[in-house]
C-alpha cells in the first residue's frame, strides 16, 4: 500500500514554509469557525467523519493503467459536518498520516493541508452551496450536488499543487505538460471521489438526514412545516 501525499523534497524550503503559513492561517480560521458548527452531538460525529476519511484514504482504486487514486475527503467532510470542521478533519488525518504512517512529508505538511484540506473544502463546498441554491430542495439534489462538488474538488486540488510546484518545484520540468497530466489523471480520480462522496452523503441522508450539515435547510423545511419559519437552529432556541 503506497498511499502517497506530497513527500519531502518536491517543493523547496521557502515555498514549503509559505504554504505552511497558509495552512496555519487556514487552520486557525477553521478553529474559530468550527465552534459554530460543533455541539455535543456533531463533535463526536466530526471525529467519526475524520476517522472515515482516514479509512477511505487507504482504499486506492485503479483509475488508469498503472495508476491509482484515493479519496481526498475535503468535500465529503465539509458537506457532512460543515466547511470549517471539514478543514480540521482533513488536517487531523494528514497530521496523523505524516507523524505515524510516514505518509506525506513533514516539511510538505503545509502544502498537503493547503492542497488537500483548504482547496478541496473551498472548491467543493463552494460548488455544493452554489448548486443547492438553484436546484430543487430534494435529497436527490443534495446527492447530485455532492457528486459535482467532489468531482471538481480533486482536479482543483491538483491544479493548485501544480501552481505551487511552478513557484517552488525542486526540479526543472515542463510545467504545461505537468499541469495537463495532473489535471487529466485527477479528473478520473475525481469521479471516484464523487462516487464515494455521493454514496456516503446519501447513506447518511437516508438514515439520519438531520446529521448532514449541508442538508440542514432541506431537512428543516421537510420536517418542521407545521412550525413558524425560523432563521436557524440556534436562533429558534433563542426566539422561542
Amino acid at each position: 500500500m503506497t498511499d502517497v501525499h506530497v513527500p519531502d523534497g518536491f517543493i523547496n524550503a521557502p515555498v514549503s514554509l509559505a504554504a505552511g503559513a497558509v495552512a496555519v492561517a487556514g487552520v486557525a480560521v477553521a478553529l474559530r469557525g468550527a465552534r459554530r458548527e460543533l455541539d455535543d452531538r456533531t463533535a463526536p460525529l466530526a471525529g467519526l467523519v475524520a476517522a472515515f476519511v482516514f479509512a477511505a484514504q487507504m482504499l486506492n482504486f485503479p483509475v488508469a493503467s498503472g495508476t491509482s487514486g484515493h479519496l481526498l475527503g475535503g468535500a465529503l467532510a465539509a458537506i457532512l459536518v460543515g466547511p470549517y470542521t471539514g478543514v480540521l478533519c482533513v488536517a487531523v488525518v494528514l497530521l496523523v498520516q505524516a507523524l505515524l504512517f510516514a505518509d506525506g512529508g513533514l516539511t510538505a505538511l503545509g502544502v498537503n493541508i493547503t492542497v488537500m484540506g483548504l482547496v478541496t473544502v473551498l472548491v467543493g463546498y463552494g460548488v455544493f452551496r452554489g448548486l443547492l441554491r438553484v436546484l430543487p430542495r430534494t435529497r436527490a439534489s443534495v446527492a447530485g450536488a455532492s457528486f459535482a462538488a467532489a468531482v471538481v474538488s480533486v482536479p482543483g486540488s491538483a491544479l493548485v499543487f501544480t501552481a505551487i510546484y511552478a513557484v517552488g518545484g525542486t526540479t526543472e520540468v515542463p510545467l504545461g505538460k505537468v499541469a495537463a497530466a495532473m489535471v487529466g489523471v485527477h479528473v478520473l480520480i475525481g469521479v471516484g471521489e464523487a462516487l464515494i462522496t455521493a454514496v456516503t452523503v446519501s447513506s447518511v441522508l437516508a438514515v439520519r438526514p438531520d446529521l448532514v450539515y449541508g442538508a440542514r435547510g432541506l431537512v428543516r423545511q421537510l420536517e418542521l412545516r407545521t412550525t413558524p419559519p425560523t432563521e436557524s437552529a440556534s436562533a429558534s432556541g433563542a426566539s422561542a
Partner: protein
Amino acid sequence: MTTKRFFAAFLLVSLVLAGIVSFYASAHPDGLEKVAEDKGFNAKERDHSMKDSPLADYGVKGVGDARLSGGLSGVIGVGVVLLAGGGLFWVVRRRGSSAPAAPAPSTASQDA
C-alpha cells in the same frame, strides 16, 4: 436510528474499510506519484523522516503477515484519528446548546 446506534455503525464501517477492505486496495502509484515519475519531478524526493516509525507505510513493524499488518495499522489509524479529531472537536464545540428543549437565552451571545 438512534444517534448512538448510528455512530456505532459509522465507526464499524470505517474499521471494516481500514482493517479488512484496505488489503484489496490498488498497489499502483497514485495520480501524483505517477505524474511525478513520468515527468521526472520526483528527482529530489527525500526519504520520509518518519520512515522508521513502527507504523510506517501502513504496516505494523514486527507483524509478518501482510494482511494482518496492514489491517492492524488501519484499525490503529482509525482509532488515533477518532481520538485526536474527536478530542479536538469536543474541546472546540460550543457548550450547552445541543438540547433544543432547554431554554438557551445565552446561545446567541455565545455565538458572537
